[in-house]
């Protein structure tokens, strides 16, 4: 992956952790803060953070359309938590700005408030037999899923990790753990 340039959306949130996780796997990183940073990226990561804040900054920075176009053309994208929300076509009870490329409906703060945030070991077949340490923080889950969307993992019976062709999204935060399997799975999607 030495020649690949990964764009990590750095408007707000835990972008430093995603960048570190990708660097550990030998990927070159570019932090995206403005429209001019987008040209030349091969893949995109949208970190956790506050989805309304990131969406608003994407809109004001005129980055929504160019990023959406690239994703629709096949650029691989991975969104965690707020990233997942921004990828979804429908967001329950919200008209906040979004990319809307993932054929699914998401419910924000679906597991509850911060006092309900939790850690759980998830079985994710694509990542091997060892359970994945998943960190859920005021996390969303998907309430409706389109035909072309594959559910990779569930927590409490709810879809929390999905893939639709070049789009990967998780409710939880692999970037907060030392387990790099989810990032590696994403990079394998990019080959």
């Amino acid at each position, binding site marked *: 992956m030495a020649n690949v340039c990964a764009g990590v959306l750095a408007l*707000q949130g835990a972008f430093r952790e995603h960048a570190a996780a990708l660097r550990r796997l030998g990927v070159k990183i570019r932090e995206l803060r403005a429209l001019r940073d987008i040209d030349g990226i091969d893949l995109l990561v949208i970190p956790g953070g506050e989805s309304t*804040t990131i969406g608003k900054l994407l809109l004001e920075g005129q980055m929504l359309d160019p990023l959406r176009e690239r994703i629709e053309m096949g650029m691989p994208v991975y969104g965690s938590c707020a990233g997942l929300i921004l990828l979804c076509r429908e967001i329950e009870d919200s008209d906040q700005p979004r990319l809307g490329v993932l054929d699914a409906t998401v419910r924000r*703060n679906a597991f509850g*408030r*911060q006092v309900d945030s*939790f*850690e759980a070991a998830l079985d994710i077949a694509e990542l091997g037999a060892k359970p994945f340490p998943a960190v859920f923080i005021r996390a969303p889950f998907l309430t409706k899923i389109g035909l072309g969307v594959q559910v990779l993992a569930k927590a409490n019976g709810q879809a929390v990790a999905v893939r639709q062709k070049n789009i990967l999204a998780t409710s939880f935060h692999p970037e907060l753990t030392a387990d790099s399997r989810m990032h590696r799975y994403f990079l394998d999607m990019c080959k």
Partner: protein
Amino acid sequence: MKQGTMRVKTGLAEMLKGGVIMDVTTPEQAKIAEKAGACAVMALERVPADIRAAGGVARMADPTIIKKIMEVVSIPVMAKARIGHFVEARILEALGVDYIDESEVLTPADDRFHIDKRGFTVPFVCGCRNLGEALRRIAEGAAMIRTKGEPGTGNVVEAVRHCRQVMDEIRMLCALPEDEVPNFVKECGAPLEAALATRKKGRLPVVNFAAGGIATPADAAIMMHLGCDGVFVGSGIFKSADPAKRARAIVQAVTNYKDYATLAEISRDLGEAMPGMEIANIAPAERMQDRGW
């Protein structure tokens, strides 16, 4: 399934990074803050400038105000408890607030001890002026730190001083030979374990925001340059002439703190900032930053 773990508590602070946490006193202000791009709000009865003006004992806000604010926004809601007042903190936890600020803006309830924050499910943020204070709070279980600055003044000088002090002491701690660490932590009043974690990481083991006196987009940007992960803006927004516009500009400034052309653009025509105060004109007994042990 595990709740209230340190990873989950520090994790929410990680998600707030690069963002602005705004003080609000009504549901209407909370909506304005959310719309402007705040990554969280602090629900209060009065902003620090008004607490300072009112005098007397400042306590936890009425739960009705906090609840109403929680009902109208989808972003995290924080609230303040008095230093050492673990029952106010338990009440805030029972209300379901997302973070508790054990804050020097309120009148301390304990003149020797802070809250033992380790047994709570809700995470805490605490203020500091130096590394020893930051690491004592972390040892007590704080999942996030902020500089104290001097709240309610609209004067950023104290926030700058406290941030530089913490960063200087971290650089010193990291450069010391190992055998000098125990004496260094004795002199700065830092618990050894938290100091060793800081030394290993090369930075505080939890997220560190700036607070206390930030009034303009440039104030927010200078704190980011000094190494803070984000900013709290207290009186600076809703004591200014055009809160919505100033709030939007400060959000932009924290993301684009290195981009001076953008900072120049967003700093234009914001209307009057909050009236500022010279720190030297505040009587020592009225300095909020000296509260905390």
